[in-house]
């Protein structure tokens, strides 16, 4: 079942000719690191990693903050927070309807956000999907704990931080992972909203390394063709793009088990 993966890995370490003739199966032919070198040595690689790191870290923290603070009030029963129903549909609606690319672009341009880091962070910060999942997790928290905290004189914010968050680590870890992976992988916004290709995040940059020319339209010159058909590069990119997340993942997994705290707090 994971043979395709091994195949792609093998391709990434193979010589160009063998790879583009599809001769590589599960073991590299003409072993070489060229594909990795090409990708990494290509101009803006380091810079794009920096952009991605910024957007991922700031974007995930910011996004999670917004979502956590929104999910808490929305997890309340209608009886204790009447307006929640109105709010939740306000959010759900945006999950389904969008005005499309053009007005979005006009908006970002008028806000002067093009070519800034913010264009990668703010527009996608409110993930309604995450919000709904989190509010459902919050609902699973026993009511008594919340009431006890509120009666103790703690405000809502304090209750959220002291009571809700510690016992929601599995949910928070999950949603953070989703947000993080989303930021890490998304390339389309970088391509369209960064007006300077030197500000591309990693995922966008990786998209630009492979030559994808429409040969029917341009004057192909044989001397330019050396760089074409970089199947090996395409394969290497998968691993370059994936490696950091894979390294991070086992670490995040620790939090999935930590939910046991729930029992401990109860006493």
């Amino acid at each position: 079942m994971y043979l395709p993966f091994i195949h792609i890995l093998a391709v990434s370490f193979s010589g160009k000719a063998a790879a583009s003739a599809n001769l590589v199966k599960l073991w590299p032919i003409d072993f070489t690191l060229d594909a990795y070198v090409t990708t990494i040595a290509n101009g803006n690689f380091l810079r794009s990693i920096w952009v991605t790191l910024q957007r991922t870290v700031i974007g995930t923290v910011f996004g999670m903050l917004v979502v956590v603070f929104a999910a808490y009030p929305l997890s309340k029963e209608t009886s204790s927070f009447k307006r929640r129903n109105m709010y939740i549909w306000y959010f759900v609606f945006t999950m389904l309807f969008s005005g499309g690319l053009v007005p979005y672009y006009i908006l970002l341009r008028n806000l002067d956000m093009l070519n800034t880091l913010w264009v990668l962070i703010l527009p996608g910060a409110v993930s309604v999907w995450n919000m709904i999942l989190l509010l459902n997790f919050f609902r699973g928290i026993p009511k008594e704990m919340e009431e006890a905290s509120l009666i103790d004189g703690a405000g809502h914010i304090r209750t959220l931080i002291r009571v809700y968050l510690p016992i929601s680590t599995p949910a928070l870890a999950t949603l953070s992972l989703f947000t993080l992976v989303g930021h890490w992988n998304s390339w389309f916004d970088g391509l369209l909203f960064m007006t300077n290709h030197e500000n591309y995040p990693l995922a966008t940059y990786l998209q630009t390394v492979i030559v994808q020319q429409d040969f029917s339209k341009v004057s192909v010159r044989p001397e330019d063709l050396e760089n074409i058909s970089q199947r090996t590069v395409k394969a290497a990119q998968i691993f370059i793009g994936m490696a950091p997340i894979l390294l991070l993942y086992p670490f995040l997994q620790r939090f999935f088990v930590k939910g046991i705290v729930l029992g401990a707090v109860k006493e």
Partner: protein
Amino acid sequence: MRMKVSKWKKTIILDIMLAPALILTLIFSYIPMAGLVMAFQNYKPALGMTGSQWIGLDHFEFLFSIPENIQLIWNTLIIAGMKMAANLIVPFIFALLLNEIRRIFFRRMVQTIVYMPHFLSWVLVGGILIDLLAQNGGLVNQTLTSVFGMKPIFFMGDGDWFRFVVVVSDVWKEFGFNTIVFLAALAGINPSLYEAAEADGAGRWQQTWAITMPSMLPITIVVGTLALGSILNGGFDQIFNLYNALVFDKGDIIDTFVYRYGIIGGKFSFSTAVGLFKSIVSLVLIVMAYRMAYKLANYRIF
């Protein structure tokens, strides 16, 4: 009167907590929605949204006037529906199985491995699938012919098989990632419940049936309902990389059509109209699911 004020005071903090999300949504979601007017226009870039001609429901009529397009909508519904079901069931069961693995190291390893394909692109997967499923010399057909003595199947060139390939490859690529939500739900189950059950002498299977499954039901309903939001998205990237003229009749979906149709001339208003149609269908389905969950299970999905 006084009661009311104090209650308002008590909950105003909740509104304040919501404020950042409300404002961001207003700016980045609601304001651009003005662009939906394009769906009712014959939008010409040079004339802009205010200057373009209003054509009412023409785009929608056009969408439905062509028999092939009805087929497209069906294809999309079938493919997306099968994917939705499979992407709910497989990760659910897998999470349960994974939960039974006691060795933490092994469990984490499995979890990491199954989640890797999420990072592959459909361009690459598509190329591999074509080779894997080739009629002559493809690994799958070789196995079918030599081990099971079957005739080779033209997976990529036969409409029904093509749908099957689309669903299976999508599940293969995403189930590890989709499992994560269920694992989080599993981790949130109060261990004292299991302790109590064990004290009552319940076996593992009974525990799973009586505690684990019901505890996971809400999150399953939520994930399922939210998936309805994409019931008219068959998965553009995937189909676009896999399909070919032989399976147009059963494999072509709304999004691939809109892409091809729009690529000559960038027809913004038609794609907006199609998008609006998809949104409305999703909204109707989600409202129905919401109502049903509330009526039948007395559960508010959101």
